[in-house]
């Protein structure tokens, strides 16, 4: 009842914004190619590989995009080394998108498929963005439906499924000639097998297969603001609050600074703080029998701090024709767990991670 009421209010608000639409047309996304090498290493896990994306307009109003993304994962995380043996596997992801622009509206369709030996995930999405209020406000609505198949190595009898529904709404608002802000809300619901068939929980010190609820609903609100500081530099701030039906509550604070150096370089620095509380059924070592129990540290109480930097070099630029840029970024992240014990040492767990990206972009 409350949800219907909320939807009706959002609908009325969006409708009223649409009613004051301006005359300025939305631009079709620019033709672009991206080639990325990405690498993540930390906590015994390394995941790296190439990714490619091409976006091209086929008419004045339609832009098509396709991308490929490979994750070559080598996993010797604490969960793996304390209960199983190290493994390697690849994840291949393919995405296709189509954007259609008509006057002040953009309609985007997306298809995405991700394949691992024991996990297949398919997604399709529809997003609509409408520019209004003389081009100062952009309102967007979106929906994604996902369906996954979960398998288990060396256990052909195990097969389960998950369905996901995602609904999002967002507003981007020009505040002044130098400041722009956005507010985004997203609700996600999952139904199906929401754990890992390999992971174990601890009950009275003994290892037992984890037992997760088969449904989860979450909400997230994200507020961002970007400001031009006047010396070819800009400030970025964002805050996200997250909560779900598993009683996880999380805060994400992010700040960034960007600055042009000379004619060819652009430098970015970012600082990110993340903190979450544990899920109701999370336990490091349960002291009672409960219907649900998990020792998935993704559901534990922890925080992480990330410090990152990025340098962009504009290699070739022919105004109105093409521009080629080389980019390198690095982020150091420190994870610190409050209620997840490293059973090898008996002390609380924590680790450092390194996130590296080397990529080239070409606008044409």
């Amino acid at each position, binding site marked *: 009842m409350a949800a219907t009421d909320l939807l009706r209010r959002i609908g009325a608000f969006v409708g009223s914004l649409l009613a004051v639409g301006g005359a300025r047309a939305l631009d079709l996304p620019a033709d672009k190619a991206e080639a990325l090498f990405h690498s993540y290493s930390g906590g015994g896990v390394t*995941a790296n590989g190439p990714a490619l994306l091409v976006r091209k307009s086929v008419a004045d109003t339609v832009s098509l995009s396709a991308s490929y993304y490979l994750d070559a994962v080598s996993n010797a995380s604490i969960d793996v080394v304390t209960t199983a043996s190290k493994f390697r596997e690849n994840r291949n*992801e393919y995405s296709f998108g189509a954007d259609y622009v008509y006057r002040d509206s953009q309609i985007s369709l997306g298809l995405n498929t*991700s394949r691992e030996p024991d996990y297949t*995930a398919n997604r399709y*999405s529809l997003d609509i963005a409408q520019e209004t209020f003389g081009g100062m406000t952009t309102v967007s609505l979106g929906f994604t439906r996902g369906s996954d198949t979960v398998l288990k190595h060396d256990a052909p009898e195990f097969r389960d499924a998950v369905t996901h529904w995602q609904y999002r709404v967002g507003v981007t608002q020009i505040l002044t000639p130098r400041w722009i802000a956005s507010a985004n809300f997203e609700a996600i619901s999952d139904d199906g097998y929401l754990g890992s068939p390999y992971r174990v929980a601890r009950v009275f010190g003994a290892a037992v297969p984890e037992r997760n609820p088969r449904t989860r609903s979450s909400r997230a609100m994200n507020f961002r603001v*970007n400001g031009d500081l006047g010396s*070819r530099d800009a400030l970025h701030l964002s805050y996200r609050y997250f909560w779900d039906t598993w009683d996880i509550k999380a805060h*994400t604070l992010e700040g960034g600074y960007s600055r042009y150096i000379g004619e060819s370089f652009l430098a970015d620095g970012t600082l990110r703080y993340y903190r979450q509380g544990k899920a109701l059924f999370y336990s490091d070592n349960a002291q009672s029998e409960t219907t649900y129990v998990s020792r998935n540290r993704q559901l534990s109480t922890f925080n992480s701090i990330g410090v990152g930097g990025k340098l962009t070099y504009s290699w070739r630029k022919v105004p109105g024709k093409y521009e080629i840029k080389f980019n390198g970024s690095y982020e150091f992240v420190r994870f610190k767990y409050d209620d997840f014990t490293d059973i090898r040492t008996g002390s609380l767990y924590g680790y450092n991670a390194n*996130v590296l990206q080397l990529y080239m972009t070409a606008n044409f």
Partner: protein
Amino acid sequence: MKRLLALITLAALLGGCSSLQPWVKPYERERLADPIMAFSRDNLPERHRDHAREVREGARGATGVQGGGCGCN
């Protein structure tokens, strides 16, 4: 009662919108069009970063990044 108050406030605010005119003209938006002012600059690196976080954190969503699913937990 609270809901009624919220609705009245919302109606009053939206009523105000009808007399409100866009105060930043298109020719004043040059600085906002610069890449350093974009919420998202490049797609693939954003997806990589979002993915690396989503498989390790309990929180998800509202980042503006459209990614695919995986069983990477």
